[in-house]
């Protein structure tokens, strides 16, 4: 009997199942790879609804930030601010923040951004878009950082059309948290406490927020655009000396920086912008290892699926799922505790604004009577420092809770500086026979705006024209470019402090 045919037959018989099995294994592997793969979202996709196709729960909760839609006019609540910001855009319009969903809408609708008539008219620079949209990192990649920070706000009106969204914090290819704003990395490096190489995921759960929830200024930076000299206004964190109010104050003083010169008191002023991260890190929650997301984006379960709630807002809306994860006690007790903290802050903040507004008016009077720069210098320095400290303490979202001790300490400093200024000014006024001078009444927003001579009605008219013309153009153009998702403004009602 020949062996060869038998060997051949057996081989073929063995071969068949082995080949089939190999194919089956290959098929399984391919399938698993497809299931386990991160869905493909194209690079620089800025429309949240596109990401939402793959992450419906995160998207749904994110969209619920539209429920935070109440406009609270802070200038009406405390008209002293109008006087304190005379000559600066904040005296025109200043509201409490609404949900992330409205970030862009409110930036466009506020009187602060004015009424440009084309891409080259002011009043504000492109930097004012920086925190409002995932279109910003897209444009920085496309045009380069220097070009992005050069020019007027209206330059990018038809490009920046999606409100704060997925692409601001997530990498579209891996979904990992990522820093899309380089100025934060530069700030961290300058400060030196946390090296970017050492950043953990838990750090990132705060740092993605710190990209915007931090104090910044626009640093004038000369650059060369293929032979043409240009000046960029680059968002910069003043963190080199540290994160406290005094550290930043010294930074600005050394650098001789001022955001604007006060229209009445002629003080070279500083404006603080929500130093949320800076104050949070002094508080007990940060020191116990918590991140922003732990309380502002608590985990929720839906059936068997666990995900982080992207309806970012006050944890007080959901005490049972935030505070009470770690603390004993009842919702009622927590609400009362937080309300007390807020009341203490408000008490000191009111004292500070009253003192500082009076100081501005008294300084204006002193100038009017012929005071010299030499006489005024020290008083103005006190106003500058006092108002900076007050602003640092209150401009943030919830610093009174994140860092109650620090907030009250800084406010106490603000009141003290303000009173120091008033003492010095009283001496100057006395010198010019006005020792008993009392500034005009600024007890309502209207009175305060009249004192600083703000043409409020005119500003509103211009703004409305802008909203009905150029703004509509922007929407049309961005839709034509395929950048704009109409869901962004679905059922949007124009809500402002002035209409």
């Amino acid at each position: 009997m020949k062996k060869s045919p038998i060997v051949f037959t057996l081989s073929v018989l063995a071969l068949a199942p082995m080949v089939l099995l190999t194919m089956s294994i290959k098929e399984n592997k391919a399938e698993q790879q497809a299931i386990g793969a991160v869905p493909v979202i194209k690079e620089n996709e800025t429309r949240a609804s596109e990401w939402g196709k793959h992450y419906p729960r995160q998207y749904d909760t994110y969209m619920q930030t539209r429920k935070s839609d109440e406009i609270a006019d802070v200038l009406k609540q405390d008209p002293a601010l109008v006087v304190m910001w005379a000559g600066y855009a904040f005296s025109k319009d200043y509201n409490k923040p609404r949900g992330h969903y409205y970030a862009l809408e409110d930036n466009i609708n506020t009187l602060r951004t004015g009424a440009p008539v084309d891409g080259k008219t002011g009043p504000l620079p492109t930097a004012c878009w920086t925190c409002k949209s995932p279109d910003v990192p897209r444009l920085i990649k496309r045009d380069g950082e220097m070009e992005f920070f050069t020019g007027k706000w209206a330059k990018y009106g038809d490009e920046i059309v999606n409100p704060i969204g997925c692409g601001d914090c997530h990498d579209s290819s891996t979904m990992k948290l990522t820093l899309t704003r380089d100025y934060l990395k530069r700030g961290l490096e300058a400060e030196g406490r946390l090296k970017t190489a050492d950043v953990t995921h838990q750090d990132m759960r705060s740092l993605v927020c710190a990209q915007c929830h931090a104090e910044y200024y626009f640093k004038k930076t000369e650059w060369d655009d293929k032979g043409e000299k240009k000046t960029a206004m680059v968002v910069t964190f003043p963190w080199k000396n540290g994160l406290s109010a005094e550290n930043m104050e010294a930074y600005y003083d050394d650098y001789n920086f001022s955001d604007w010169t006060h229209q009445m008191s002629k003080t070279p002023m500083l404006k603080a912008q929500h130093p949320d991260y800076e104050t949070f890190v002094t508080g007990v929650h940060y020191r116990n290892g918590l991140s922003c997301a732990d309380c502002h984006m608590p985990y929720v379960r839906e059936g068997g699926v666990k995900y982080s709630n992207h309806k970012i807002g006050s944890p007080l809306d959901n005490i049972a799922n935030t505070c009470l994860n770690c603390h004993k006690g009842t919702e009622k007790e927590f609400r009362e505790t937080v309300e007390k903290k807020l009341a203490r802050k408000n008490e000191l903040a009111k004292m500070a604004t009253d003192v500082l507004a009076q100081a501005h008016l008294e300084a204006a009077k002193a100038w009017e009577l012929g005071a010299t720069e030499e006489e005024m210098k020290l008083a103005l320095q006190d106003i500058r420092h006092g108002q900076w400290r007050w602003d640092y303490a209150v401009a943030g979202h919830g610093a009174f809770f994140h860092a109650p001790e620090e907030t009250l300490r800084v406010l106490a400093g603000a009141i003290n500086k303000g009173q120091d200024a008033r003492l010095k000014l009283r001496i100057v006024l006395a010198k010019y026979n006005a020792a008993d001078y009392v500034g005009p009444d600024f007890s309502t927003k209207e009175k305060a705006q009249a004192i600083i001579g703000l043409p409020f009605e005119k500003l509103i008219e211009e703004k409305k024209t802008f909203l009905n013309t150029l703004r509509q153009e922007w929407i049309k153009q961005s839709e034509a470019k395929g950048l704009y998702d109409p869901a962004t403004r679905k059922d949007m009602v124009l809500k402002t402090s002035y209409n």
Partner: protein
Amino acid sequence: MKYLAIFSVVVVVGVFANLVNESKMLSYLSSDPKVCVNCHPMITHYETWQHSSHRDRATCIDCHLPRDTFVNKMLAKARDGYHHSVAMTFKTYGYNLRISADAAKRIQDNCISCHRENVSQMLANSALYEKVEDSGVQMGRRCWQCHRDVPHGTMRNLTATQNNFSVKVF
């Protein structure tokens, strides 16, 4: 014909070698829990275990294979492996996997083997009132009928489990 026979043997050896590689066959001789996630349906069980208090104390096989003799362990491994590969190849498993009676008995024995000191008195007491047909189930109940979430959690559906990031959840 002779050359054809030789050629066919070479092909068989080649295909088998490839199969060994593709199926990670040799890895099944190891006791590393990662071997159990060679196939994706086990990812749920791997992830839930990895987030449980047992992860530093007991690996998959510490609970799921018999510990009395090496021969029994290898026989059980071969038997389970065969069932799993058939289920995997012909896709006969559902989203909620259930333990076999044989494997349940092994696990119960293994619970007791580690937690002997805790349960010795319970076992002694249970002998006084044990009224169940299956003498392998002391006290009429298995440990996990009360300790339901140890260690894989209460939710272990392949598509809907917490911490299970690798299986599609929607």
